[in-house]
Structures are given as C-alpha cells and as structure tokens.
C-alpha cells in the first residue's frame, strides 16, 4: 500500500516536473532573447586619437539626454541622444576639451544636460545645503550634550530627596580626587 503510494508519487512528480522544466527552459530562453535588443545601440565611433575614446565615454555618461527624464546619453535610445552622441564625437575629434563640450551643450540645453550641476547662485543651496544641515545638527547636538552633562553633574547634588544625596556622597567619597572627607567615610565604615 505504502509502496504503491510512493510509486504513484514519483510518477506524479515525473509527469509534473517534465513540462515544468521544459517551460522554465523556454521562459529562460525567451528572457534571454528579449534582453538581447537592449544592447542593440551599436554606433561606430571613430576617433583620431586613442585618448579621445575614453573622454567620449566619460562625457556621454555625464551628459543627460534632454528628451528623457533620467537617462544619460550613453543609455538612451532617443533620436536626440543619438544626435548628441554624434555631436559629442565630432566636437572631441575637433580637439575640443571636455569643458568645451560641456559648455556647448550647456549653451543650448541648459543646466538640465549636466548630471553634475554647476555651482551657481541657483544651485548653491543644492551644493551647500547638506553641509549647512550637518553643521547645524553638530552645533545643536554639542549644545544639547553639554547641557545634559551639566545637568547630570549639578542636579543630583542639588537634589532634595535623601536617597540621591546619599548616592552622591558615596560617589564622591569613592572618587580619589574628590575624597576630601576620607576620614569621615573611614569612620563610617565598621572597624575590623
């Protein structure tokens, strides 16, 4: 009976897993073929000097596609990104520096094209804001800690209840620099 059940089970498993394996294989294949065209942007980039290519790659990663909301020229398939990549290549081949290429784009498309915004009056808050905030937090924190330390130091000594007073006295007597009343505490301890 048990044996029969087991063989039924394996049979069931086999009949179920075979199509499943097949399906997942097909799904994997489909995924593989689907992801293929993502890398279909192949442009022939020719540069007159080898160092230009590295600069080109750096620039198109840093320049933003104006049509797309959040893609750089490198990633975008938009026609304008293609045109701007071509323009970038031709400017580099003309011997323009990275700064000159960026200035060219900036003059035509504005601050939006730079993923790293320039430091201007309008972007000062963006650049300095975090540091100002950090400074503010540090100042407030230091003040708060100082205040708390002072409270911890003075409040117990001014405490009204007897228990705290005794606690403070014991603490002070055990602190070497503060044990002015050493003799007193010695006296208070039971003699051997």
């Amino acid at each position, binding site marked *: 009976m048990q044996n029969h059940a087991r063989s039924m089970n394996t049979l069931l498993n086999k009949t179920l897993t075979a199509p499943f394996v097949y399906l997942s294989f097909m799904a994997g294949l489909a995924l593989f073929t689907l992801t293929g065209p993502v890398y279909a942007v192949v442009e022939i980039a020719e540069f007159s000097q080898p160092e230009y290519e590295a600069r080109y790659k750096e620039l198109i990663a840093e320049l933003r596609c104006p049509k797309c909301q959040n893609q750089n020229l490198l990633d975008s398939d938009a026609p304008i990104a293609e*045109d701007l990549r071509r323009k970038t290549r031709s400017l580099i081949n003309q011997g323009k520096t990275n700064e000159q290429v960026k200035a060219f784009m900036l003059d035509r498309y504005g601050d939006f094209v730079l993923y790293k915004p320039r430091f201007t009056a309008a972007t000062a808050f963006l650049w300095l804001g975090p540091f100002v905030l950090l400074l503010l937090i540090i100042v407030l924190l230091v003040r708060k800690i100082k205040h708390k330390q002072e409270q911890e130091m003075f409040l117990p000594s001014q405490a009204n209840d007897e228990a705290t007073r005794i606690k403070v006295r014991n603490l002070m007597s055990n602190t070497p620099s503060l044990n002015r009343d050493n003799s007193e505490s010695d006296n208070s301890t039971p003699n051997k």
Partner: protein
Amino acid sequence: MAENKKTRLYIIPLLAFLGLAILLGIGLTLNPKELPSALINKQAPDFNLPLLNLSTEQVQATTFSPTQYLGKRWILNVWASWCPSCRYEHPLFNQIASNTSIPLVGLNYKDKPEDASQWLAERGNPYNAIPSDINGDIGIEWGVYGAPETFVIDEQGHIIYRHAGPINARILEQEIAPLFPTLNALFNNKP
C-alpha cells in the same frame, strides 16, 4: 517656562514637516518636461539651410537664414512628417497663416523632403519658408530635443519664447498671441 519649551519641541518637527510638504508639493506640480530654454533672450542661432521645394516664399535663392527676417517678429516651428503631435498642432498654424501676416518658418527636422512635401500637400502649408534640417544639426544649435517645438524671434533676432511639444489653442491664446498684436486682436475680437 517648561511648558513653553515642550510646545516648542513639538512644533519644530511639525514646522519641518510642513516646510518639506510645501517644497515637495511645488516639486510635484511642476511639469518635469518643461525645461527652461537656455536660449531665451539670446541671439537666435544662425543657419543657412536649403529650402523645401514647395515653400511659398522662394525669394532668396533656395536657402533660408534667420538673418533674412531681421526687423520682423516671426515664428519658427520645428516639425516633421514622422511626428504625430505635429499633426495635432498643424491646424493652428494654418489658422495663423490665413488670419495674420506673421512670418511662419517651418524647420523641417530630421525628415525626408519627399515625405515632408507629401505631408504638407495633405494638410496645407502655412509656412513662408521651410528650411530642411535633414540630420538635425541645426536642431541641436537651437536646443531642440524633439518635434514639435515652437520659437518666437523678435525684431532684433532674439529668441523671446520657446515651447517644447505641441501647441494648443490655450497656449496659442495665452502665451503666443500676446507677443503679436495682430494675433492678439484676433483673439480679443472673438466673444
């Protein structure tokens, strides 16, 4: 005193939250596609492009340059036959052309001249000149990132207005018409 301090402590996060909410609220209601043009109030970039054959004003040989319109206030519309929203805004340019004498230039952007001619033959040609920017290089000079886009250039050759995307009746009436007395009069005479 202690009460005051306590309320102050509670009010600070509330104020911080309100401030942030207002800032983010403004950010959310802005249209991220409306990029400020880098060219506003600057000299319109010059070019010299061959004209499409069917343009109605073939005065200066067969090319067009913005310098030809110095002293006039004119509209540059960037369009293409492959651009669906150009179809949508085209009737408005036809209306401007038939009701006013505002010079309309249709920069044919990254298009095949034969497709462009066919497109205009079907929909009517409102343009005084149709310079043909086949590879989009002049588009880059003007900071164009897609068709359609509309620019207004003043008498001194400065770009005074730019709209990226299709114009509609509201944009025409509220943003473009005020720049042209003849167009403005047209809207104001209508009840």
